[in-house]
């Protein structure tokens, strides 16, 4: 496992994900990806689901990837990486590896659409089969690549292009699916949540290093604040991520072997959810008097979940 010490040293790691890609200014995807791919000194083979990251990083004849990379489709990043990993095992057994002196690790990236929704089946299958890979969900809570449609990661009350606020609607009606717990329930040896942030950069990098060095399927759900669809200024990305953590809207934790839960960061003074919601245009309508109950509902759910996490941690389950 790569030892991650200080930010200066970490930031000087040679880039495996190069600049010049076409992600939006202020997009959190590239921050998360850079942290993940630099969290190991082993060689990498990466698959990526169709989505923002894919369309912005490999437009022929250019590529941002200085590692072997494949994009097959929207719903099959996990299946594709499982095939590549199986080939590595087969060639190792047959003594036919291309670079015997190098160890290869496998990582898949998908957005919340490619993970929570259309790619869920192939992710579940690949994790159940026990392939040795890390799957990172870049969770921006909507189908940002195609103009901001709702996904099952979209939280209640959010305005998206297919769950718009309107004269008789307050936006998204469903609660966000709890993908991290679902993946933990697969019995994966390691799952975690993470955010791109100056405050919590090491939390993400350490989790990525741990996940990559763990044998077997591992999963990280990384909140990826989306300047374009969440409607905040590009320079506020890490601030939004920090607020998600400080309000406990997106708690940072890890689970080993589907059982042992550990909270990796505990806010000193938990902020009210309004602090997080009010910074984002997608929630601006919630501050109308008739929608006040939704914010109250938000706060209640966040409090309940934070309480649940702490009780699980205390109980060691």
């Amino acid at each position, binding site marked *: 496992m790569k030892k991650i010490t200080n930010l200066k040293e970490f930031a000087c790691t040679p880039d495996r994900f190069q600049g010049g890609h076409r992600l939006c200014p202020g997009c959190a995807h590239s921050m998360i990806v850079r942290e993940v791919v630099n969290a190991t000194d082993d*060689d990498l083979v990466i698959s990526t689901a169709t989505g923002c990251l894919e369309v912005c990083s490999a437009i022929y004849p250019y590529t941002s990837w200085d590692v072997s990379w494949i*994009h097959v489709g929207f719903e099959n990043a996990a299946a594709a990486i499982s*095939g590549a990993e199986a080939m590595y095992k087969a060639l190792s057994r047959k003594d036919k590896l291309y670079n015997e002196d190098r160890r290869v690790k496998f990582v898949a990236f998908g957005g919340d659409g490619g993970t929570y929704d259309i790619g869920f089946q192939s992710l579940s299958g690949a994790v159940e089969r026990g392939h040795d890979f890390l799957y990172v969900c870049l969770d921006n809570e909507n189908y940002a690549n195609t103009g901001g449609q709702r996904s099952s990661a979209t939280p209640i009350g959010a305005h998206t292009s297919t769950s718009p606020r309107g004269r008789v609607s307050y936006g998204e009606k469903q609660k966000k699916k709890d993908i991290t717990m679902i993946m933990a329930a697969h019995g994966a040896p390691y799952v975690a949540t993470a955010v791109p942030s100056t405050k919590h950069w090491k939390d993400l990098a350490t989790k990525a290093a741990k996940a990559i060095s763990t044998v077997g399927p591992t999963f990280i759900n990384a909140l990826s604040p989306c300047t374009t669809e969440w409607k905040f200024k590009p320079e506020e990305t890490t601030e939004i991520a920090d607020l998600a953590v400080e309000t406990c809207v997106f708690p940072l934790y890890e689970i080993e072997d589907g059982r042992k839960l550990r909270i990796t960061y505990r806010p000193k003074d938990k902020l009210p959810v309004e602090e997080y919601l009010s910074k984002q245009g997608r929630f601006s309508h919630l501050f109308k008097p008739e929608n006040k109950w939704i914010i109250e509902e938000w706060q209640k759910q966040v409090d309940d979940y934070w309480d649940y996490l702490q009780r699980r941690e205390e109980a060691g389950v």
Partner: protein
Amino acid sequence: MAERYELKQKEVWDGNMAAAHALRQAQVDVVAAYPITPSTPIVQNYAQFLADGYVDGEFIMVESEHSAMSACVGAAAAGGRVATATSSQGYALMVEVLYQASGMRLPIVMTVVNRALASPLNIHGDHSDLYLGRDAGWIHIIANNPQEAYDLTLCAFRIGEDERVRLPVTTNQDGFLVSHTAQVVEPLQDEEAYKFIGEYKALNPMLDTKNPVTYGAQTEEEWHFEHKANQHKALMESFPVIEEVFNEFEKVSGRKYNVVETYKLDDADIALVLMGSAYETAMLAVDKAREEGIKVGLLMPRVFRPFPYNEVAEKLKNVKAIAALDRSAPMGTTGALYNEVAGALAAKGQSAIMTNYIYGLGGRDTTVEHILEVIRETEKNAKAGKRVTDLQGFINLRGPKLSFN
């Protein structure tokens, strides 16, 4: 190292066992598959070979055919020999990824056991799945019996992996009629078969991590056309390689395959064009018809994609009337085989009278007598010098006669 499998000079195998042994002998590095009737025994047999130590590659039983082909693409891009098997609905679920496999020029081999497509649900043989995948950019080869299913699966690896081709290949056999019908098969011994196929030659493998590669990039209007045109070029120019591989295979097996197969066509006045197990039924019908004095012959495109249109036209240049028999619901037009043959003739300015017959959907029997009836009708057209029968007829269909003109 995988154990050598002791094979008798003559084995009694059904098509599924024949295909499974071909995959085993190819020492495939990764097989990713999902079971579906009637190709299920291919993966079951393969799993047993693995359990008994005859396979040393990876075998992944995935959670769907979509993931099966996706894992095959990931594995093939990683850099090694890859194969799978499927049928019908599973094939349909794979279609999206079939295009991605061929677009990335990955020489995956898929042994297809052809079956009808729902609805209504039907597990029996017809060519609906083959026709569904015909524009997917794969080479499609047709086997009419278990021996051919075995032989052509061995050939498929060598064709697809050839540096001049680098395309995925399917071998097709009719559901149940071939896949579950045991016949005598003369296999090659393991070492002979592997020597014929050869070592896998990697091209831009992802696992050569010292030389990173990007697979599955996006191309929009500036480059997409060039990529697809090049892919088409690879298909169109694969004929000499296919013929070369068939010739090499004859040297090791004594069995000769051709891009276009014919039966008693040289002196024929009329011809039937069809593929699959019904071709063998038609051979018996031709023999009977010739006893009646009808000079009839058969033609089968052994390779359905790329379609050998020049050779098809050349071999049919002396016949006066042709019936093309399609084993798939044409759904609003004439059958695909009819269209291909008609196009091939038109390109050469040939004007044989053409008719189309739809037969055998969902495993409906097609007997020698049924084919004889087609031959007699086709002869009427030849004698009249114009089409006097229906443009499109249906063989052994219940209810009132159905035809289109």
